């Protein structure tokens, strides 16, 4: 059993003949926050997708939440991670509550978890609003409510700070701190550095699909 929630060794991801990630080695320990930085096209999103079982490993090896990325069915991994992409993650024609109800039922979670999740992200008063009518920041909060309900072992968030105002950023910093304190791990991509209140953050800088530096 690995001591890491996720570990990649010389990972390669190729799509349509083009290497999106090459020679990536990464370890994510339990209850840690890892920040992926890098310019556009550096491979941050692909790396998050690889960790979430959303793209396959083309070469190298890796395991995430006990699932071997090279050998096991990566669909088994998906239920164990929480994913928040930078695109809209919801059904625009369903309300906030309906979106979360769908997710809760799909995951077999009790519907009683909805209200605390909405309360935590500050969307309790918007629960009957259609997702298409939410602002970009509120949509981000809806995604976080989805993750809170899931309680995944590994949180994967692609540019979560985008479209958030200062309050939203502070809220996200606080949420991340709570999630890590509760024992889950977070891997997050961002152009900026995370909030100073977050404490220890492992930073991995990607360029051209490769790890250029880490700190």
């Amino acid at each position, binding site marked *: 059993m690995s001591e890491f929630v996720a570990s990649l060794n010389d990972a390669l991801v190729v799509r349509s003949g083009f290497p999106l990630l090459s020679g990536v080695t990464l370890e994510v320990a339990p209850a840690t926050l890892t920040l992926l930085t890098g310019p556009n096209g550096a491979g941050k999103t692909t790396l998050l*997708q690889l960790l*979430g*079982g*959303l793209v396959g490993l083309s070469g190298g090896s890796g395991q995430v939440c006990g699932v071997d990325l090279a050998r096991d069915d990566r*669909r*088994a991994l*998906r*239920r164990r*991670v*929480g*994913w*928040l*992409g*930078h*695109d*809209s*993650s*919801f*059904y625009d*024609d*369903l309300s906030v509550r*309906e979106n979360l109800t*769908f*997710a809760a*039922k*799909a*995951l077999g979670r009790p519907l009683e978890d909805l209200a605390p999740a909405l309360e935590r992200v500050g969307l309790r008063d918007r629960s009957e609003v*259609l997702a298409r009518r939410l602002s970009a920041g509120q949509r981000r909060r809806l*995604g976080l409510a*989805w993750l809170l309900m899931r309680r995944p072992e590994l949180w994967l968030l692609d540019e979560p700070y985008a479209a958030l105002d200062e309050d939203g950023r502070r809220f996200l910093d606080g949420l991340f701190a709570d999630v890590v304190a509760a024992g889950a791990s977070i891997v997050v991509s961002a152009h900026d550095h995370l909030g100073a209140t977050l404490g220890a953050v492992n930073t991995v800088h990607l360029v051209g699909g490769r790890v250029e530096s880490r700190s």
Partner: protein
Amino acid sequence: MIRVALLVAAKDLRVELRSRVLLWQVVPFGAMALLLSGLALGPARAGHSGAAPGLFFLVMLFVTLLTVARSRAIDARAGTRDSIATLGLDPGGVFLGKTVALTVELWVTGALLLAGTVVVLHANLAGTLAASGNVAVTLAALAAAGVLHGALSGPGDGSATLLPLLSLPAFAPLLIAGERAYSAALGHGALWAWGTISLVALVAYLALGILLYGVLDES
């Protein structure tokens, strides 16, 4: 699987009710296609119900393809697709749920267009009513085949190949059986012989979909 199917069907139908794409795009398209078909035949031949069954099912095929594209679009945006993928839904259940939702949509559209065949193409009302059970089964089979076709032509490597085009002949047995059964109901032969083909096709497409949808969707 049934739990997931009901969940997905309810979600797709709720989205459809809210967006009203069926009401504002699909039904008008079907009605217009049926009307144009009648006009293309000319007043003399359009007045004869012999052409009605074939035209009805041809229009319903176009409606199916349009509705399937819409059904795929609900889940196709990159962020939504990834989020739903991490729910780990049983692919067989997703296929069944999408088929149920699409079947309901095709039944609604089909009922309106059947009325159109009576009004525009002068199909016999009693015969059309007698054919409605068979039409319902054939539309359900069209829905199952359509969801499978959608998985081939959706986002992914398959859409860039000839595969979606080559899968279109899979609709042929349904068009033939549906048209023959409807014609039989209008007084030109044995209704249930052709209806059985639609029923067998429905079961076959459902079995294929439950087995293959996950693989097709994943690719």
